[in-house]
């Protein structure tokens, strides 16, 4: 979908990130940029979101809105777009986390308008 592609491309450019993917809850990719194996990354993105939800649910603390992984030289952020979608962004460690989250929220708002 052209709209989704441009939203993800802008997110990637604005945040100077390395890769981004929009996946559904069954782990299927809807749109992806710079992920080497879309199917695998989408399935893992959905898995991390689902497992985090179940983990949080275990403590009776509602749903997990986001998962932030701090790798040695990267941030990997997974944010819930809506009940059925999640967005994963891979960015360098030199990125400002607050800015990444801000741009992600903006992208999520635009994605939801596409599906409204």
């Amino acid at each position, binding site marked *: 979908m052209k709209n989704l592609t441009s939203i993800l491309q802008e997110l990637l450019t604005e945040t100077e990130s390395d890769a981004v993917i929009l996946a559904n*809850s069954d782990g*299927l990719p809807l749109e992806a940029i710079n992920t080497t194996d879309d199917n695998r990354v989408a*399935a893992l993105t959905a898995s991390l979101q689902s*497992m985090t939800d179940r*983990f949080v649910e275990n403590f009776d603390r509602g749903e997990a809105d986001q998962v932030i992984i701090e790798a040695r030289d990267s941030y990997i952020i997974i944010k819930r777009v809506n009940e059925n979608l999640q967005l994963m962004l891979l960015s360098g460690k030199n990125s400002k986390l607050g800015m990444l989250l801000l741009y992600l929220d903006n992208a999520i708002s635009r994605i939801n308008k596409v599906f409204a």
Partner: protein
Amino acid sequence: METNLMALTEKLLNHIPENLRLNEDDINVLNRNVDFFISKADAIKNDFYDTLFSNEATRKVFHEGERHIREKSLVDWVVKTVGGKFDINYWAWQTYVGILHIKRKVSNDYMIIMMHRVSDLVISEAFKDLSAEEAGKLKTAWLKVASTVLSLISESYHYFYLVAISQTTGLNLNLLDNLVRVEVDNLVEANQKYRLT
């Protein structure tokens, strides 16, 4: 994917081709030979558990001192099976056994081998004790029951294993299916050397 045991049972039964399903004639043959099965119950249970307890790997499945309980269960299963109506509740019971097998770590390889052993005994005894015509009919009916039970237990084992993972982790069954899909090609590739050419 369905998580209801009764619905899964119906779905699996519908997978069986029409001509391989147990029909009224088969049920009649089994029902009229209940006495034959009762007369063979001791032989079946002794052979079954002697085999399992003589093998280290299969012996480990059992708890200390439970052999007589398991023997009674096997005899009850045989008698209820051959004397029964084979309605959906009976088949659902077999599907339920698949879940019990997960709990007891009775893997499908053991189960299939032992079902074959029971079938072998039933058929050979039938040809000794019954007329050739009746034994032939009993063989057909029994093998249909055995293969249906095998299919229900083995699929139930596999299916509820996934359901347990799904419910623990929160990964839905479609997602689990997709996780398998992204890796299965690698598994096929990694094991190409075992392919007969």
